[in-house]
Every structure is written in structure tokens, then in C-alpha cells.
């Protein structure tokens, strides 16, 4: 009887507590709806739907409405909608666009009490610090992408090569063994793919230049630093792949990734986002290795990412809800879901560098690369890439000398930077 009464009273207590807390919850956030925008990519949409349902279950009273746009229209739509008060409360942006969005006051800084700067500095991969303005974080990623060397296992076996190259010299030697030509000397299989129009401009800028002892940009990011001895050596090495060693051709099979997918290339440098496409290719046996180290053993990698930010449209309780959603999007749990669904790597070492991820034969090399990756702070990514493409084209098509072409590209890119930072 006594026992029964105790159960009864504790039941009432629990009920009162539950009622009280739900009333309190109603006072704080009475059914807030926030809107989230991202560009359309099927795996991303699936991952986001999972994240939203998890978030809504943990935060009753907050609903998140999503909206996806084709990539081509994305930036335009966001730009038109936010000033009109119609856009998202939380938005996904390419990290390279951040400057423009901050300047236009379309996004709000993340308050330091919920997103402490020191904690983020410590917990996220260092490249995320590019999202900091005046000692405040403006945006944070869920996932990041890095580069690695894909290799064709079948062609490696056929040529008797046991392991992917560990350094740049080995890369050239292995590429030579994998290159095939027909009777007339036409390339029918390349040792390694090349093309500044694909990922090679990142590889050259952030990896090769550093591995030859230089750096691509000055510390304040406002001037070009690759027009140097190191930059020249890096470019000479890159151009020699085609012109001296004859192990590649930038127009071979139209696109580097196409040549690799078709099994006509021994090696191919690409981002983690390529995993999905290669996975679906029947009959292609491939592996992944970390990018080869430089002449003195320097490791480097390039990382890019999409970030989430709270827009200036979110005010009052919507702002609070948006921050809660942001906090969930940048949690370890969300990052693992993103990796499993989209194949993009977690933005925090604690989530990325787990034993399971590091030992994964596919994700492992990418995850390890994140530890020493750099992110270029682009002001006009396509314009800056075009200069790299033209730099190599001038040497290959017009016979311009390598130092001259390098200086011309540097001058061109400096003009873009000057125009932006003026």
C-alpha cells in the first residue's frame, strides 16, 4: 500500500514535472519553423532529411523546412531571396563565397557563447579557421573533402607494380610503366591523368608548390607567392609529366576522370566526392592512396568544403532555433551520418580520425590527408582556375617558356586579388 502510494505520488510528480517542462518549452519556443537551403545533390538531400528528422525528434517545437535548388541557380536564388526576407534561416554555402556573403551582410556571426572560438579552433580541422572574421566564426562545415591518388589495381597488377607511389619520383617511374602507345606513337593509356581544368590546379597550388619548398600565397592571402623558385620547380615538374616523360596528356579521353573510369589511366588525382561515381563503375578495380610526398618528404593536401551559416533573416526565436540546428549540424553524430550517406569526410578530427575511418581502405587516405590539408581562400574560383589552365596551355600549345608563363599567370591572379581586396 505504501509502495503503491509512493508510485502514485512519484507518478504525479513526474507528470507535473513533464507538464512544467513542456510549458516552459512552449514559452521559450512555441513551434518555431526555420528554413534550410542547400543545392540539389541526391545524397545530400537524403543525408539532410535524416539529420532534420533526428533534430526535430530531439527538439520538439522546432520544425525545419528544406528547400533545394539546382547547383547552377543556387547562388543567384540565395542572393535574391535573403534581402527580400524570403530566404533561408540557415543556408549552405561554398567556403569560397564567404567573403562575399559577409560583405553583403547576408549572414550573421555565430555567437561566442554557443560556438566558443577557442573550442572550434581546437576541435575542428585547422582549415576551418578560414571561416573566422574579426575573431568570430561566421560559418561552419559538417563535412570536408580532400584529395588522394586513385589507382587502377588491374593495371598495377598487369605491370607488376606492387604499391602506389610514395613520393613524386616514384610517381613518375610508375607512370612510365603504365603508359601505353600504339604503333604510331599515339597514347592509348596514360600513366597518370592530368588537367588543370579538373583537380590538378588544387594539386599544383596547394600541394606541389609547397612540396618544392614554397607557398602559393602570402600569409595575409593578398599576394601571389608562387612566382618563385619553388613555384617554378613545381611547374617544371608538372609540365614534364607530359612534355618530357610522356606519361600523360591533358586532353586524353576528354576528361581525366573519364579516362580513369574507362580503365585507360593508371593513376588519377581527385577528391573524395569521386568515390561514389567510381563505386558504380562496373569492372573497375581501384584503390586509393595518400598523395605522394615531395622531394624532401613534405606532405600536403587540399581541402574544400561547404559550410552552414545563419542568415541575417533569422531573428529572435528563429535565430535561437537556427543556432540549435547549427549546433546539431556540426556535431560528431551529424558528421558520421554525412560520411555514411554522402561520402564526405567529417570536419572534426574527433569524428574523422576514428580508428574505423582511418583504417577504411577507401576513406582512410582521404581522412589522413585532412590532417595536413590547406584550403585556398578563393576570391573568384573559376577565374583563378582559368589562369592555371591557361598557364599550362601557353607552354604546351604556344611554346612559351615555363618561367614566363608562370609569371604571366601570377600577374593575372594578382590582378584578381587586387581587385577584390582593394
Amino acid at each position, binding site marked *: 500500500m505504501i509502495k503503491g502510494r509512493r508510485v502514485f505520488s512519484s507518478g504525479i510528480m513526474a507528470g507535473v514535472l513533464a507538464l512544467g517542462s513542456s510549458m516552459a518549452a512552449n514559452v521559450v519556443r512555441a513551434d518555431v519553423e526555420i528554413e534550410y537551403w542547400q543545392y540539389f545533390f541526391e545524397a545530400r538531400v537524403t543525408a539532410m532529411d535524416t539529420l532534420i528528422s533526428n533534430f526535430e525528434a530531439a527538439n520538439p517545437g522546432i520544425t525545419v523546412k528544406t528547400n533545394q535548388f539546382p547547383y547552377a541557380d543556387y547562388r543567384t536564388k540565395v542572393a535574391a531571396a535573403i534581402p527580400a526576407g524570403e530566404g533561408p534561416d540557415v543556408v549552405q554555402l561554398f567556403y569560397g563565397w564567404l567573403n562575399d556573403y559577409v560583405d553583403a551582410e547576408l549572414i550573421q556571426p555565430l555567437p561566442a557563447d554557443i560556438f566558443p572560438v577557442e573550442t572550434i579552433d581546437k576541435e575542428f580541422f585547422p582549415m576551418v579557421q578560414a571561416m573566422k572574421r574579426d575573431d568570430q566564426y561566421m560559418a561552419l562545415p559538417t563535412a570536408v573533402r580532400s584529395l588522394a591518388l586513385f589507382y587502377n589495381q588491374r593495371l598495377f597488377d598487369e605491370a607488376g607494380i606492387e604499391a602506389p607511389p610514395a613520393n613524386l619520383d616514384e610517381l613518375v617511374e610508375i607512370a612510365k610503366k603504365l603508359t601505353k602507345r600504339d604503333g604510331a606513337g599515339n597514347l592509348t593509356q596514360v600513366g597518370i591523368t592530368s588537367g588543370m*581544368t579538373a583537380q590538378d590546379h588544387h594539386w599544383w597550388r596547394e600541394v606541389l608548390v609547397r612540396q618544392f619548398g614554397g607557398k602559393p600565397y602570402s600569409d595575409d592571402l593578398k599576394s601571389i607567392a608562387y612566382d618563385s623558385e619553388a613555384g617554378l620547380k613545381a611547374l617544371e615538374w608538372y609540365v614534364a609529366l607530359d612534355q618530357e616523360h610522356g606519361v600523360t596528356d591533358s586532353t586524353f579521353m576528354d576528361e581525366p576522370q573519364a579516362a580513369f573510369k574507362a580503365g585507360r589511366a593508371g593513376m588519377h588525382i581527385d577528391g573524395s566526392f569521386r568515390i561514389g561515381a567510381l563505386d558504380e563503375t562496373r569492372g573497375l578495380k581501384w584503390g586509393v592512396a595518400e598523395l605522394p610526398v615531395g622531394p624532401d618528404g613534405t606532405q600536403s593536401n587540399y581541402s574544400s568544403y561547404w559550410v552552414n551559416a545563419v542568415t541575417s533573416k533569422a531573428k529572435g526565436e528563429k535565430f535561437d532555433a537556427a543556432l540549435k540546428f547549427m549546433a546539431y549540424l556540426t556535431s560528431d553524430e551529424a558528421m558520421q551520418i554525412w560520411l555514411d550517406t554522402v561520402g564526405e569526410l567529417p570536419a572534426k578530427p574527433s569524428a574523422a580520425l576514428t580508428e574505423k575511418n582511418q583504417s577504411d581502405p577507401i576513406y582512410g587516405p582521404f581522412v589522413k590527408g585532412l590532417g595536413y590539408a590547406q584550403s585556398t581562400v578563393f576570391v573568384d574560383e573559376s*577565374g583563378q582556375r582559368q589562369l592555371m589552365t591557361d598557364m599550362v596551355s601557353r607552354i604546351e600549345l604556344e611554346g612559351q617558356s615555363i618561367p614566363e608563363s608562370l609569371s604571366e599567370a601570377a600577374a593575372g591572379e594578382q590582378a584578381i586579388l587586387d581587385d577584390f581586396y582593394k
Partner: protein
Amino acid sequence: MSFYEKLSVRQKQTVWAWGFLAIPIIFYVVVRFYPTVNAIILSFQEWNLLGARTWAGFDNYITLYHDPVFWQVFRNTFVYLLIGTPLSLVLAFIIAYHLDRVRFLHGTIRALYFLPFMTSAVAMAWVWRWFYQPVPIGLFNNMLATFGISQIAFLNSTTNALPAVLAPAIWAGLGFQIIIFMAGLRAIPKTYYEAAHIDGVSGWTIMSEITLPLLKPTIVFLVVFSSIGFLRIFDHVFNMTTNNPGGPLNSTKPLVLMIYDTAFNSFDMGYAAAQTVVLFVILLIVSLLQLRLLQDR
């Protein structure tokens, strides 16, 4: 009595006339004149789609004048025009002239010529891009390699790329021009030719004295129409050089592609608007000039 009822019949007719005219006028103002005027204003401003538009005076035009890429693109655009228009018209005329005489499977042959015009430019450009690839996938180069001839760099060359891109564009427009030419040829009264035959006039005289003069309205229409087409060339170039749009080294880049690139890759809307205004002026001048030159007697 209301205002309307006090009007005379003539005034009422005027009111109705303006009422009906208002629809196309409003349509034109909203979808044609307003954007045009807006683009002209934008060309004097700076705008990256995000922040506010700020006045820049003639900065965009000055930048344009000093931009070597612009002048290269300007030349390319005129190369497309000056090779594309005459070549496509001559080809179309020759084909139409002979097709007009063919009785055997006339409809089928005509349909075959018209087919490329109905095909999507994007699909066509991608197929041609594949034709042009180097060994081992390119159709043309594989054929050359079979005969032991060395490969030709069709698209990866600063000299060959523009003609290589132009060829499918000319081929694609041919069907339309042939149909218009054939309609023009059919419209010439048979009696003129009969009279010429009775007089025993030579074939060349018939062509230069009867056929071509009477085809003049058709030619004027086609010249203006295809000139505007070649000055605005975009989809063929963009799709055949997607990896490096307008490349290599801007050798195939037409003005429209430069505008697209500036606006939607560099997000420099003011500069793109300035380029658009230049294109608008070129189109206007070329069209007016052609109308004047070709229509005067």
C-alpha cells in the same frame, strides 16, 4: 452621366483602341524595355549579385577597353560571323538549288537536311566533341590513325579549335536555310524561266539575271537572321569546350560566352552588363547596315 458616356463615338473608339494596344505595350515595356534599360544602367554600376549596386561611372567600359581577352573575344565573334554567314548561305543555296531539281525521294532528302536543325544543339555539340577527340576515342582521329596519318589536334589547338567548333554550328543551321531558299526558289514564276529557255539564254545568265535578283528578299532575310545567329553563338562553343569554356587560351570564346562567364562564374554583373551593351550595339549596327545595303535598289 459617367465620363465614358459623355465621350463621342470617335473618342470611344480611341479609348478601345488604346485599351487593346495597352496589352502588347505593357508586355513590351515589362519584358523588353525595362530589362534593356536596366542592363544599360547596370553597366555603369558594380554588383556581385549579393550586396547593393554601387555606381562605378565608366569604369566597366574602361576595363573592357583595356582587357586583352575582350579584344580576342571580339575578333573571335567576328570570325564566327564572317566565316559562318557566307559559308552557310553559299552551301545552303547550292544544296537548295540542286535539291529543288531532285524528284527522286525529294521529301525524304529534304527531311534529312532539315533534321540537324531540329536536334538539340547541346546533344549535337557533345557528339561532335566526341568526333574530335584524340585517339583512342575520337572518331576522326581514329580514322586518320587507321590510314597511318598523324592525329590532328582539333579542339586542343589555338588555330584549329574555332573552325572545328564552327563546322557543326554551320551544319546545324543549314536545314533551316535550305528550306527558306527552296521556298524562295519555288516562289519565282516558272514563266520567267520558260521565256529564258525560249530565248536560249545560258544557265549562268538565268542564275544572275533571274534567280538571284528575285531571291533578294529571301537572301536579305537569311543574311540578317544568320548574322544575328553567329554573333550570338554560345551553345555550340560552350558544350564543345565545357572543360575549358571558350578555350584553349580563349581561342574559341565568343562574346556571349564571355558575358555568361563574367556574370555567372565571376559574379561581376556590372562588367557583364557592359559587355552586353557592346553586343547589343554590334547587333544593332550589323543588322541596320545589312538591311540598308541589301534592300537598296
